[in-house]
């Protein structure tokens, strides 16, 4: 069995890069900004959920796809972000927009904590210990009722942004959109740099990376912190989109969902995170209402993708749309 999952296949990249025609960008931007006018509340809610889960996929992909570590701490990061943001607002009165960045930082710190075992443990051991950390956190949420509301969770107060309370899905949409686009842009910049190359190098050949003066330890810690940062912020978004958070939203099943988003969308691919989220967002929504059919459908989808498209859907798409391919260097001089 091979050790590494090849990330989405990349063929010859034509050096000539034409900038997307400006009208296309403007049209896309306009469409995104005017979306709430054309959709009803429920669809808006689904769109919001897609956005935040694409961040979940993005964050998870950093550790799973680019760094190549089987670290299942995503649900832990997600939960930390959700609880910190919600409790800050509900118990301490800290407005959402102020607590958002600290949430991310908190997630980053948890990420560093997770990086420690990642430096020492191999594959399945790492998977198990990270799963465990997530479950321990969940136990903590359940058993510190006074603060966290225990198993019944806590209601999320309307998020306050610059003094205004957001009550509709449309308002929350703009927040989700802004945050998602920003984090994708930042991640794209980080990947198209020394850091992106370092990530790939450490995944593919640690010994060779060391011979270049590149410290695998430092790269891993950065990757985990960055992943934690993004997914925690996604967790904060999750809390305001849903309106209520319970420990069940961060259990093993949810983690496996995150895993599926990455695998189906395509491991190690920016486009993949988005695709996976679009496809699987219905699943988290519906699975919560315990219905066997949805689980079966989800399982069949997973099985099909794994058997027929091991590179995930982004692998398939990048064959036809070269612009979707990841690149790891910046601009030409």
């Amino acid at each position, binding site marked *: 069995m091979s050790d590494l999952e090849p990330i989405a296949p990349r063929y010859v990249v034509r050096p000539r890069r034409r900038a997307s025609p400006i009208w296309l960008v403007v049209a896309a931007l306009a469409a995104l900004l005017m979306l709430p006018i054309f959709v009803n509340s429920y669809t808006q809610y689904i769109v919001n959920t897609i956005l935040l889960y694409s961040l979940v996929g993005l964050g998870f992909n950093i550790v799973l796809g680019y760094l190549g570590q089987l670290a299942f701490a995503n649900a832990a990061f997600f939960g930390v972000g959700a609880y910190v943001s919600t409790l800050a607002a509900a118990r301490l009165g800290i407005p959402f927009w102020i607590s958002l960045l600290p949430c991310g930082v908190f997630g980053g710190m948890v990420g560093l904590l997770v990086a420690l075992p990642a430096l020492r443990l191999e594959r399945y051991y790492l998977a198990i210990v990270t799963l465990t950390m997530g479950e321990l956190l969940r136990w903590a949420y359940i058993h510190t009722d006074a603060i966290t509301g225990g198993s019944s969770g806590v209601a999320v107060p309307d998020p306050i942004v610059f003094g205004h309370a957001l009550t509709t899905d449309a308002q929350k949409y703009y927040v989700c959109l802004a945050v998602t686009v920003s984090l994708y842009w930042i991640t794209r910049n980080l990947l198209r740099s020394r850091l992106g190359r370092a990530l790939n190098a450490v995944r*593919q050949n640690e010994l*060779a990376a060391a*011979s*270049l003066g*590149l410290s695998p330890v*430092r790269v891993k810690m950065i990757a985990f912190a960055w992943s934690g940062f993004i997914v925690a912020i996604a967790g904060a978004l999750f809390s305001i989109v849903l309106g209520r958070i319970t420990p069940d939203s961060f259990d093993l099943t949810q983690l496996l969902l995150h895993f599926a988003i990455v695998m189906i969308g395509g491991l190690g691919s920016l486009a993949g995170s988005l695709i996976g989220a679009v496809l699987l967002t219905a699943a988290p929504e519906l699975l919560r209402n315990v219905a066997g059919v949805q689980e079966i459908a989800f399982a069949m989808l997973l099985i099909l993708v794994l058997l027929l498209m091991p590179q995930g859907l982004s692998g398939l798409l990048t064959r036809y749309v070269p612009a979707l391919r990841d690149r790891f260097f910046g601009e030409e001089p």
Partner: protein
Amino acid sequence: MNPVLQVDGVTVRFAGLLALSDVSFSLAPGFIQAVIGPNGAGKSTLFGVISGYVKPESGRVTFANQDLTGWPPTAIARAGMRRTFQNGGIFRELTVLENVLTGIPQAWDFRIAATALRLPGIRRREAAAIGHARETLDRLGIADIADRVAGELPAGQQRLVEIARTIAARTQILLLDEPAVGLTLGELDRLGAVLRQLAAEGVSVLLVEHVIDFVMALGERILVLNHGEIIASGTPDEIRSHDAVLEAYLGRK
């Protein structure tokens, strides 16, 4: 002239087997030195010790007057040494250009905040690195494959990519482990010319190789290893007619 690399009395044992026994030699700046010997002689182990992947049982490795015996590979690399790997150490899923770019910084300062926001300083740095990488590829004659994915290339070209990555940082010392494997005659000539050019610029090269013609044409000094010991050391002509060397390669008559 002070040697840039000094190896003294290095002994390495693997589970009771003596891989290197009391090996000593020095490498001067701007010199190309080759290490040859039959299979299993300990050549790659020697490289491992010098570059920090193998801890010697005894002995010392000094680089630019600094004792770096027992240092980890990353620290040694940052001190100014680069190496290639016998079985190939390229990053198969990155393009050729990206591979060479990984070789460029001598020290890895990520400057995360600036990179995240794509500040002009970072963009300039990246553009300069890309320019330098392309130059290096051009030097080795492989500029045309810059955007190919490294894993899809034939072995010889992969080797050249690895060498390009290794020389890109202009470090003081290069350790090349069998760089000539799989190269065509034209590519060999190119490589030899580039190495000589680098030596003229003051870079020291330690070379492990089996392709004898290449070694003889290039090496100013040749070390012969057998069973973990240095059995001969001298110029190509001296080695060619050295008894112990002939015996090691051809066997006793």
